[in-house]
């Protein structure tokens, strides 16, 4: 069930109405049943996998809390092995096996291990990481083990963030699931506004940009430099609008019920460095890796070489987390290399800036960071690694063709589409700029009701009429 479908609209209305109609003691039952239904709308049988990890982690939490010394570590290890094992089988088995086949093939040896004909359970990496965060926090003593099996199951399965995050921490979500949330007009209105904004980003911007990207990235060999640059620029915005749109809808749906999910994006394209970008992009994942892997590794591998090693490993894993393919790994590695270079160049760069008298470098830094992110995105968005290398190698060629606009016709879109798409990107950036720097929302909320309603009607009209509702999946569902 996609957030951008009629099915979800019915589902959301029914679940929300029932939620506020029931007394507090029954709400977790409703939310758990609704979450099961939501998940089973994709591939019903995979609920069993989710159930398996929920049972393991529920008991692991209780055992870890009750144990002392090495037994605590043993229970944690069991839980992590179970979670990572599920990920390994369903997400990475075929990838590893394919690579083994390739390697053995070079020595003219057939791979005797068969591949698995299985679909990847939707949102597997998200709920697995959320479940692991629970057992790790219990192990670290930051979180009490949850005794209520239903509430714990709901923590893993809470439908708004079940399939694409944000990857919540138990300290934030578990207490909220136990609280009684009265109907709150402000929460409901603000949740619905956030959902509308997320839907706008998804169906009006992301899915519109996707039309051109699909045409170019599916078979990039027919396109010249300028076409590849435009498609890659669109890719950056498409992925952002798609994923942050999903997050906004998820956070909005939860907020309507009085539950506050963590922020996942904080204007990432305003970042001045790649390091800053990773504090603003997919925050729930980057902080997960920071807290549960990078920090422990930093204590073990110290100094500049240790730091560089840690960064490389973390971003290799970030890439691998996204998908079992070389292009995602390459995307992660490129980001890691950016950060490693950033670390090594920090002092010389500072000295250079001081020497030539530059103090502020914001706009150039923002554009530079955006360009670097965009270059890495080629590997994220390509169907395979060879297409990614082709795009990366050809996007700065054929610039003598710049004015030959007949090349643009090959992208399969009309000129009006290009104008509209660039216009939407500008509108997005302007709205975000005013929201961030000029308290757009607060100003808006102080306006008389007829102005606010006119804006709501206009927003509904734009989404309803100009949104693309072709059941296009959210990109991050595949992870």
């Amino acid at each position: 069930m996609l957030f951008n479908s009629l099915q979800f609209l019915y589902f959301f209305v029914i679940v929300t109405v029932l939620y506020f109609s029931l007394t507090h003691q029954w709400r977790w039952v409703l939310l758990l049943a609704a979450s099961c239904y939501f998940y089973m709308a994709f591939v019903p049988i995979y609920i069993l996998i989710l159930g398996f990890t929920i049972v393991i982690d529920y008991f692991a939490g209780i055992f870890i809390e009750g144990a002392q010394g090495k037994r605590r570590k043993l229970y944690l290890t069991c839980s992590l092995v179970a979670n990572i094992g599920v990920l390994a089988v369903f997400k990475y088995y075929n990838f590893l096996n394919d690579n083994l086949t390739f390697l053995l093939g070079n020595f003219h040896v057939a791979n005797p291990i068969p591949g698995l004909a299985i679909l990847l359970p939707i949102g597997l990496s998200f709920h697995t990481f959320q479940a692991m965060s629970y057992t790790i926090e219990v192990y670290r003593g930051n979180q009490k083990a949850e005794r209520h099996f239903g509430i714990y199951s709901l923590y893993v399965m809470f439908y708004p963030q079940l399939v694409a995050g944000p990857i919540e921490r138990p300290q934030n979500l578990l207490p909220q699931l136990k609280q009684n949330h009265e109907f709150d007009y402000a929460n409901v209105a603000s949740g619905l506004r956030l959902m509308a904004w997320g839907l706008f980003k998804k169906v009006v911007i992301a899915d519109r940009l996707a039309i051109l990207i699909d045409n170019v990235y599916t078979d990039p060999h027919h396109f010249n430099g300028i076409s590849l640059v435009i498609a890659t620029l669109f890719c950056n915005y498409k992925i952002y609008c798609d994923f942050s749109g999903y997050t906004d809808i998820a956070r909005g749906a939860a907020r309507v019920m009085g539950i506050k999910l963590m922020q996942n994006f904080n204007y990432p394209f305003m970042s001045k460095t790649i390091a800053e970008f990773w504090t603003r992009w997919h925050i729930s994942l980057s902080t997960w890796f920071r807290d549960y892997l990078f920090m422990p590794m930093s204590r073990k591998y110290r100094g500049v070489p240790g730091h560089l090693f840690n960064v490389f490993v973390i971003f290799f894993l970030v890439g691998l987390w996204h998908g079992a393919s070389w292009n995602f790994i390459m995307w992660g590695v490129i980001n890691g290399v950016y950060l490693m270079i950033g670390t090594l160049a920090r002092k010389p760069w500072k000295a250079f800036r001081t020497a030539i008298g530059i103090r502020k470098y914001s706009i150039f830094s923002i554009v530079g960071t955006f360009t670097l992110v965009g270059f890495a995105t080629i590997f994220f968005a390509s169907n395979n690694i060879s297409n990614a290398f082709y795009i990366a190698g050809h996007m700065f060629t054929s610039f003598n063709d710049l004015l030959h606009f007949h090349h643009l016709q090959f992208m399969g879109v009309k000129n009006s589409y290009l104008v509209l798409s660039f216009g939407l990107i500008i509108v997005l950036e302007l709205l975000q700029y005013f929201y961030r720097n000029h308290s757009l929302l607060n100003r808006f909320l102080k306006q008389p009701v007829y102005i606010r309603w006119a804006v709501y009607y206009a927003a509904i009209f734009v989404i309803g009429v100009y949104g693309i509702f072709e059941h296009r999946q959210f990109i991050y569902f595949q992870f």
Partner: protein
Amino acid sequence: MKKFVIRLFIFLIPISGFIAAWEYGLSRMPDSYSMKREHLESLAPKIEVLVLGPSHSLRGVDPDCFSMKGYNVANIQQSIYYDTRITLKYLDKMTSLKVVLIDISYPSFWFQVHTCDEPFRDYFYAREWGIRYPSIKWYDIHLYSKILAYGNEKAWNFALSGFSTDLERGYQENGWAIGGKKGPLNDSAGYNLAKAHEKEMKQENFADNISDLKIFIGELKKRNIEPVFFIAPYNHFYNKYLDKNRMKTIDSAINGLCSIYSCRKYDYHTDSRFTDEDFREVTHLNKDGAIKFSKILNDEILKNYNSPLLK
């Protein structure tokens, strides 16, 4: 909560009114499905030649050029599924029917409406022709809302045009559509259209389409009606980007059917008698091209038939 519910109710009143007016406008708009059905029903007993297929035959075949009474039931993106179902539904009423011309386009064998870029057409076959594709359930809301059936953007464009029509430009009572916008005749147009068609071709549809044709041809043969396969002329800019393996598969599939049921096959897709002058864009003939093609169909396929109705 009461305050919220009241406000929500008031907020939704203008939206509901707007949607109702939009639906009303769409429901009164003539469309090619209802028109084709009405014309087919009124002409059924007289029809001797029935033309099936997608837009290539809709725009490329003028039945008035035939020496026999013809009707063109082809429609935009009409799949083999609907070609065969529509014909079978009216077969008993078409008492004079002698020949069925079946246009097999490049995507036809791999094509179904619900997997194409305009899946709304399925709902019109269900509403207007009473032929519901098996995957569409009776409770599907798209069957009852034209906004949802067309899709928001298309439905809004109809509203902007004053709900004038959803008919092909130059739609004729014999089912032929003359007009339509002139499109570019160049390499990129050929490439884009071939790629767009490739996207709509799904391997899982192949066996169903062949099976539908077998049942269909069997029924026609029982009634002494001759099925004739043809491939319409395409422009060289489009032909250049067609997958040669697919074209071979089309050829061998038609040959297979022809050898089982002893029917004829005519392939015009690279026919040198058609030049750029005959096309309005890379896959569709213009008015003159369509008349030229229809006369060729008549000369090469129909001229041996004798029509008592035209005597």
